[in-house]
């Protein structure tokens, strides 16, 4: 089987495994297409974990877990019929006009074309150093007997400590090899590159959707008595005067969705620029960085709807099961996403006073714990079986100071995006906070907290580790800074979309003020009734 046909078959199999769980978690959206193979790769990683822990064969576990995922998805649709993708219940779809949907399609086309253009690099038959020595070497190990894989992971004579790294990339490669019979490193590299691109496209499309929703909100006429949905969670603090406000001009209100499409396409090139050559040579750094980035964007910057939480779950599992740095970053992000959900949740419940609403906080905590258990299973298993590379001595406090300085110096050249992102975020936060609030984007601090989590996870490992810091930095710093650098550019892009809505927001405000000034006495309305504290939307 040729590499091309084997790649198609492998991606189809991974997608088939991830299809129903993804549709159950996310619904039918554009990003479902890019999330499905990632969910399949997560199932492959879980299969590798269970295989090493229990025995049997890797592929039997892969098929079993895929079937289990499908059954759970089916059961969830039986239990909650309104969550079926074909159900047209309230909130099942965002209300959009035809040209908003057209913008979504345009964004998909732009992102797909940009990804295809960048993936031309696959014509260079590169297999990365670590891909050959570790990531795809382990793909073969997962296809060995259980006793043999334990021996290979434990044997000190094999020296390589990194073989205990999380299994997602290797497991996806093992599925590809097993299904196609094509045991070439080239196939593994191409499959990993496509998974990387799926994670990137998912993160980029968040910007398209964000702009589209912002435009949709700006162009919707506001009627008297209808509360404005600031934060998207029923903020009733803003009342409209009698008479319908005319929406801002079509051009002004369309600016965010156009800005979203342009920014998303630019972000594809930026991301390939930051992650190449590792994006297309089989390394695991891009997939954890891009998946964690997507989790930040959907979990800490977007509106935080249930569908978004499904996206976040798949991306966090992908990041946490790909590499040690991804595991630590994903663990911190899981906590941050749960905290944000806890800060949003009280106003997001319709039937207050019910038993469910009293225990609403259990949901985000339970989801966070389940995600932590999933991503933590492999590192714990490696300790239990005594795999190589599990002992990690710490440097002394004195060494940590000099290592911190070296780490800072090493990071600086790769984080120049902060020179753009910080001023833009400060100015935007000071002047455009009202516009951002209208856009339904989360408070920018959440995004920065996500960026800091990745930076601290990687920086912390470099600082407390004992390997010689200079060569360590020289050979890894450009890869381990991918996540914070990418997140910085996404923060810039979100501000660009927010700021593009400023004229429309200002025009809407001007129109509203004009209405108020010219209202005759008999049409004035009393000030809005005070909103109970429990109904107020926090600025998230």
């Amino acid at each position, binding site marked *: 089987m040729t590499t091309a046909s084997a790649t198609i078959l492998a991606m189809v199999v991974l997608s088939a495994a991830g299809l129903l769980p993804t549709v159950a978690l996310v619904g039918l959206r554009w990003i479902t297409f890019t999330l499905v193979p990632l969910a399949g790769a997560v199932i492959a990683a879980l299969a590798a974990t269970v295989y090493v822990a229990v025995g049997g064969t890797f592929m039997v576990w892969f098929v079993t877990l895929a079937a289990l995922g499908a059954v759970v998805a089916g059961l969830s649709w039986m239990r909650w019929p309104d969550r079926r993708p074909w159900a047209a219940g309230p909130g099942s779809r965002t209300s959009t006009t035809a040209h908003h949907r057209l913008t979504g399609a345009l964004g998909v086309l732009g992102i797909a074309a940009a990804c295809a253009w960048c993936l*031309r*690099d696959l014509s*260079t*038959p*590169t*297999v990365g*150093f*670590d891909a050959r*020595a570790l990531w*795809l*070497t382990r793909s*073969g*190990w997962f296809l060995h007997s259980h006793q*043999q894989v334990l*021996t290979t992971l434990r*044997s000190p*004579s*094999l*020296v390589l400590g990194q073989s205990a790294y999380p299994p997602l990339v290797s497991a996806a490669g093992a599925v590809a090899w097993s299904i196609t019979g094509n*045991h070439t490193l080239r196939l593994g590299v191409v499959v990993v590159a496509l998974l990387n691109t799926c994670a990137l496209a998912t993160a980029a499309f968040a910007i398209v959707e964000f702009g589209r929703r912002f435009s949709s909100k700006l162009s919707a006429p506001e009627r008297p008595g209808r509360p404005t949905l600031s934060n998207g969670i029923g903020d009733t603090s*803003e*009342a*409209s*005067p009698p008479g319908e406000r005319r929406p801002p001009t079509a051009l002004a209100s369309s600016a965010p969705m156009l800005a979203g499409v342009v*920014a998303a396409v*630019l*972000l594809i*090139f930026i991301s*390939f*620029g*930051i992650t*190449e050559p*590792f994006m*297309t*040579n089989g390394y695991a750094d891009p997939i954890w960085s891009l998946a964690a980035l997507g989790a930040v964007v959907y979990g800490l910057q977007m509106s935080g709807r249930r569908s978004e939480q499904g996206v976040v779950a798949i991306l966090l599992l992908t990041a946490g099961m790909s590499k040690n740095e991804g595991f630590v970053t994903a663990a911190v992000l899981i906590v941050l996403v749960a905290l944000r959900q806890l800060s949003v949740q009280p106003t997001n419940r319709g039937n207050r006073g019910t038993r469910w609403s009293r225990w609403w906080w259990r949901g985000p905590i339970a989801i966070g714990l389940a995600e932590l258990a999933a991503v933590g299973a492999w590192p714990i298993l490696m300790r239990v079986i005594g795999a190589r590379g599990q002992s990690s001595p710490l440097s002394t406090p004195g060494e940590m100071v000099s290592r911190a300085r070296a780490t800072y110096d090493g990071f600086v050249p790769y984080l120049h995006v902060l020179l*753009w992102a910080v001023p*833009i975020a400060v*100015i935007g936060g000071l*002047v*455009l906070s*009202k*516009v951002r609030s209208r856009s339904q984007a989360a408070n920018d601090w959440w995004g920065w907290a996500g960026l800091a989590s990745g930076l601290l996870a990687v920086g912390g490992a470099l600082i407390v580790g004992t390997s010689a810091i200079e060569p360590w930095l020289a*050979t*890894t710093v450009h890869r381990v800074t991918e996540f914070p650098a990418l997140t910085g*550019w996404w923060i*810039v892009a979100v*501000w*660009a979309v927010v*700021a*593009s809505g*400023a004229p429309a927001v*200002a025009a809407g*405000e001007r129109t*509203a*003020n004009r209405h108020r000034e010219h*209202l005759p*006495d008999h049409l*004035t309305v009393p*000030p*809005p009734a005070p909103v109970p504290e429990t109904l107020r939307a926090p600025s998230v």
Partner: protein
Amino acid sequence: MGPQVASGTVKGKPWARGRASGKATIAVGIIVVAAAGVGLGLQAVDGAHTVGDQRQPTTVRNAAIDDAYYQCLDIQARSLISPNQPVTIDAGNLGDFISLLKAIGSWATFSDSSSSAEARLSLHSTRGSGGCRGSVVVADFAVPHQGVTQRVGTGASMPGHGPPPAPPL
């Protein structure tokens, strides 16, 4: 008592009082869009160049040499051992160890210890024509195979000397 006029509020604060005026909001919005657009655009152009660099003839040639080198070692190793035979890598230095691991790591069966291995694989230098850039895979068998305890890999060769140019780490 004058007419009461409804006033929009955000988090309890008036829209147009005590906050940035509409004109200031528009001006800053335009500045932020421009600054972000310039940053994103410049970085995207840089990214496109990086993508293009991966398709430069030198990069393609180095990748092909790297691939051919490890395929050469792989074929030589397969001429010495079968996938089910327990082996160990006995390299004199870390570089040779990694080279052999990269060549055979995904399919060879590694033994728990040297004593339980049927063969010990190593890389030897050669000046002859049968090497992979001057190296040959050698197997030392614990039990003599057809009367010999050491065999040299065959079936592939590659001109040149020394490992191929290291790909980016």
